[in-house]
Each structure stands twice: as C-alpha cells, then as structure tokens.
C-alpha cells in the first residue's frame, strides 16, 4: 500500500478514511462470497470418495486459515502499539480479536459438521481441530483480559503483551499438539489425501479466503471507528463530527 501510514496513524485522520473505505470492503466481501460459494457448491466436482459433504471445506479451510492469520496480524499490531506507543495499533489489535475468535469458532463448528459424515463422530482429537480449540482459548483469554481491565491504557498494553506471548507460543503449541497426535495415532484425515485437489476447488477456496479477508477489514475498520469515537469523545474534532452528522 502506498499510503502514508504515519499521517493516518492519528485517530482524527484515520476516522474519516476508515469511514470511506469500510463500505467498499463490505461490498467486495459480499461479491467474493457469492462467487466463492457458487464456485464451491456448483462448479467444483463432486469428490469421488467423500461425496457432496466435502463441500463444507470451502468454508472450513478458509476460516481456519483466517483464524490463525488474524492472530498473527493482531499480535503484530499489539507489538507495534507496545513499541511505538501508537494508540491506533492498540485499537486495531482490539478490533481484530472478536473477528479472529469468530473464524476460529466457525472453523471448529464446520469441522464438526464435516467430521460427522467423515469419521462418524462430531469431534475427534486430531491435531488440526485440537490446535484450533487452543487458539480459541487464546482469543478468549485476550478478549477477557481486555474486558477485565478498566483503565483503557493498561488494558491495551496488558493485552498487547499477552498477544505477543501468545504469538510466541502458537508455534510451540502447534508443534507439541502435532507431536502428541502422531504418538497417539488417532483417526486423522487430511483433505489433500484421497483426492488430488482439482484446480476449481483451490480457486473456490482462495476466493473464499479473499472474501473473508475483505469482511474482516470492513468489520475491523467499522469497529475501530466506534472505538475512536468512544475514546476521543471529549476532543474537539469528535464534537465537530457529531454536529455535522446530526445536522
């Protein structure tokens, strides 16, 4: 992006920018979702082993990817906020958390739906699902810590530090769960196993991932706008915005 980030790192100039951009990302998310779902549900071929049930992966896999990626982005913003003391980064980290948790939850839920026809059980302790579950706990910890601290500055800094601790631990946890899973050879299925992935399947999955990204950006921008208004409610520019928008 060729934007001058330093100019937009001040809440007062970020607020109108976010307001202009959010609807576009929302529209892009809707269009991409429709395209992705069409590709996934109607164009992609039926899997010869798993039948039609496999089509849930067009939601499951992108959601799982997003859940992990959002955590890293969140930790990145948290680190930025801690090091450079920029309030906007802390707002971003805070706004990303609920969406990350949502995608983690979706990926667990769809994983269970997929698991029932595949393994005959709603839940199996396979490495991927277990890691997702732990990731959900990490998100919940971040959100709860933030909610428990009243002072906004302490809340931002403490949860930022927690996000960094979590980000360092995610690879360790992921590795240890993999290790644990291979030792206790349970039922495990990998989506690339059994059938080579058709090109349309991959395209549909990538389109869905992009759609989720656009959705995330739209929601995060909107959430950051609310956050900015709330925190800066005593400042002059917010009063101006309020008088302009109520007129």
């Amino acid at each position, binding site marked *: 992006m060729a934007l001058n980030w330093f100019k937009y790192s001040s809440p007062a100039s970020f607020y109108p920018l976010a307001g202009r951009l959010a609807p576009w990302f929302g529209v892009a998310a809707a269009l991409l979702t429709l395209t992705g779902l069409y590709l996934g549900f109607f164009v992609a071929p039926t899997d010869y082993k798993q039948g039609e049930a496999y089509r849930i992966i067009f939601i499951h896999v992108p959601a799982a990817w997003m859940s992990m990626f959002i955590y890293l982005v969140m930790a990145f913003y948290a680190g930025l906020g801690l090091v450079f003391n920029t309030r906007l980064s802390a707002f971003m980290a805070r706004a990303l958390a609920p969406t990350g948790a949502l995608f983690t939850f979706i990926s667990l839920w769809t994983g269970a739906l997929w698991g029932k026809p595949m393994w005959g059980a709603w839940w199996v302790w396979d490495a991927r699902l277990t890691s997702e579950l732990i990731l959900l706990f990490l998100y919940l910890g971040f959100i709860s810590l933030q909610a428990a601290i*009243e*002072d906004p500055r302490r809340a931002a800094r403490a949860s930022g530090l927690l996000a960094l601790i979590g980000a360092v631990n995610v690879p360790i946890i992921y590795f240890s769960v993999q290790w644990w899973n291979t030792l206790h050879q349970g039922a495990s299925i990998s989506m690339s196993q059994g059938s080579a992935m058709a090109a349309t399947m991959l395209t549909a999955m990538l389109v869905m991932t992009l759609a989720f990204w656009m959705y995330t950006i739209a929601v995060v921008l909107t959430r950051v706008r609310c956050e900015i208004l709330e925190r800066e409610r005593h400042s002059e520019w917010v009063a101006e915005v309020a008088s302009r928008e109520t007129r």
Partner: protein
Amino acid sequence: MLRGNALVAVRGDRRLFAGLDFALDAGELLYVNGPNGSGKTTLLRMLCGLVAPAEGAILWNGEDIRSVGDAYRAEMVYFGHLAGVKDELSGVENLRVNCRLAGQDPSDEELTRALGTLGLRGLETLPAKVLSQGQRRRVSLSRLLLSRAHLWILDEPYTALDRSAVELLQGLIRDHLARGGLAVLTTHQQVEIDAGITKELRLGS
C-alpha cells in the same frame, strides 16, 4: 537537577493536569498541593517513573528519567501511601529487605539504630503485625534514615504519625536538604515546612 517539562497526566479519559513545568535544584523542596483528585499522587508516581507522562518529559540532570532507568532509581527514594511492611517480618527484617531492595546492605547495628531513632527501641524484633498503624509507618520511614538517595519523593508522609514523629520527619527532611538533597512532598496536614528553599506547586487550580 530535576525538571518537569510540559507534563500532561491522563487518568482514564480525564485530564488531571496539563502543561505542568517545574525545576528543582540541590537543597530545594518542592511542595505539591491541591485538592483531592487534582493529580498529586499521579505526579509523584510520574516523578518516580512508575507512571509515564501522557505528554512531556521529566529530566534528571538533563536526561529523561525513562532512559536513565536503574541509575536514576538508585538516586531516588519514594515513600508512598503504602508502607511496604510485611506482617510476618520483624522491624529489623522489614528494614533490611527494603534497604537491600534499594541497593544497600546496612549492618544489624545500623538497622537497630535507625529503628531506635524513630522511637521503636525494644520493638525491633517483634513481628510487624503486633505494631500499631503509626509504628508500622515508622518502620517504613526508617529507611529514609539509611538512604543515600539525593531525591526524596514523599507522598503524604505524615499520615498516621503522632506529633513527635512528625517533628522527627521534618528534622530528617531539613537535614537532607541541608546536605544538598532534593525533596518533593505532598501533605494535607497543616505542617510548616521550615526548610531552606521551598517551592510550591499548585495543582487543580
């Protein structure tokens, strides 16, 4: 020595004070006053480096205290609302732990003498839980006697002290300033501060 430049304090989203400047040199006392909630304690915690100013900087010998770090903390002693006295430890043990935290290692005689000066003779080895509120404050204050710090930051030090202890503490502050030390003080009690050069800083006006 100690300077505050355009300090701003924010608690939650309330501004306690803004654009606060002061300068304090050797042998001077800064008397901070103002009504409750005007940010006296916040200012003192800022001067210790516990709280970062929202804007502005605090300089010690021309350097920002946050970059001086440990070396600044070695030259400063803070006496706050909380006594920092453990119930289970005796007066001597409490004082020893506190002195060691401040980077000093006084002998047993020095510890006992310091406690004796503050009127705790014969009580040195009792666990602090049997002491009264005022006596516990005295245990805590005794570390000022052994401190080699140049800067004393005292937040309501007279609380729970009787008249004789108040006079003793005033004497300590006077001696400290006479030696070329600096002190920052808040108090609600009517106590004349008859020490060298006193500068006054009013908050919340």
